[in-house]
């Protein structure tokens, strides 16, 4: 299945959960927030959240800023 992650296309085997995507991106242990198709998916629901073909995923972090 084909996803868009932070604006870039990504091919992943189906089925994949959001937690599996986080692990694949090596973000599993990091402090990040996920949005799928414009809706925030809480950390507690990453394991249960199955991704679908065409999903748009945004993943954000805190960085330096003023």
């Amino acid at each position, binding site marked *: 299945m084909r996803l868009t*992650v*932070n*604006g*870039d296309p990504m091919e992943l085997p189906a089925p994949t959960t959001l937690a599996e995507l986080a692990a694949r*991106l*090596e*973000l599993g242990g*990091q*402090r*990040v*927030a*996920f*949005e799928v198709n414009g809706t*925030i998916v*809480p*950390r507690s629901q990453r394991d249960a959240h199955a991704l679908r073909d065409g999903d748009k995923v*945004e*993943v*954000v*972090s*805190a*960085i*330096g*800023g*003023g």
Partner: protein
Amino acid sequence: MSDNMKGVPRADKPLVIAGKTYRSRLLTGTGKYASHEETRLATEAAGAEIVTVAIRRSNIGQDKGQPNLLDVLPPSKYTILPNTAGCYTADDAVRTCRLARELLDGATLVKLEVLGDPKTLFPDVEQTLVATRTLVAEGFEVMVYTNDDPIIAKRLEELGVVAVMPLAAPIGSGLGIRNSYNILTIVENAKVPVLVDAGVGTASDAAVAMELGCDGVLMNTAIAAAGDPVRMARAMRLAVEAGREAWLAGRMPRRRYASASSPNEGLSF
């Protein structure tokens, strides 16, 4: 000395933002530093307890092993104040705040800024008011960046923000307080903390903000873009403390003509 030659001291009161008491009245940004280590050292030298951070797309597949900013400035030690820098609409700012709340385990304190124009980075006041209403309704505790307009500052306070943060001058300009009488009016009217946010250039600017009665100062570029950021961070800490002390002490009234400091009695000629 007659009474009208003396200033009037003021009672100290702690800085309380969203129910939490802070000792430091200097809040710092975390952008524009050469490294995470410089950020950490400058933040410590500033004595900051509240640090603002930006929310951006995570780098995927890049900089692996690079420490996360929140490892350097851990939420267990600092109050992390996510900001909506870079947002030009209320919708984008609200979305950023929701992401920040998820990122920070439900923390609701945010620094709202909705910008109107990339050249000046002046706030879009209309969109700021729209975003404020939504965020307050959703339970966020909003520290709001605004311009030095006392009417809008009051309106934002009435909408339920936890702090009003007027600019001294454009973000990153280092021009200092351009409209001190407006800042003074905002301070006099406010029942929530007023912090000057943006435009401070050097220590005297921070001291002036505090001498006007501001509850604190938030700055980033003035420290990060100094030749020696860690030393400037210390200078800013001292300036904020000095300005606060001077405001509490109550400065002497200005006089047009001289007033001798030594007594005229007992002259030996």
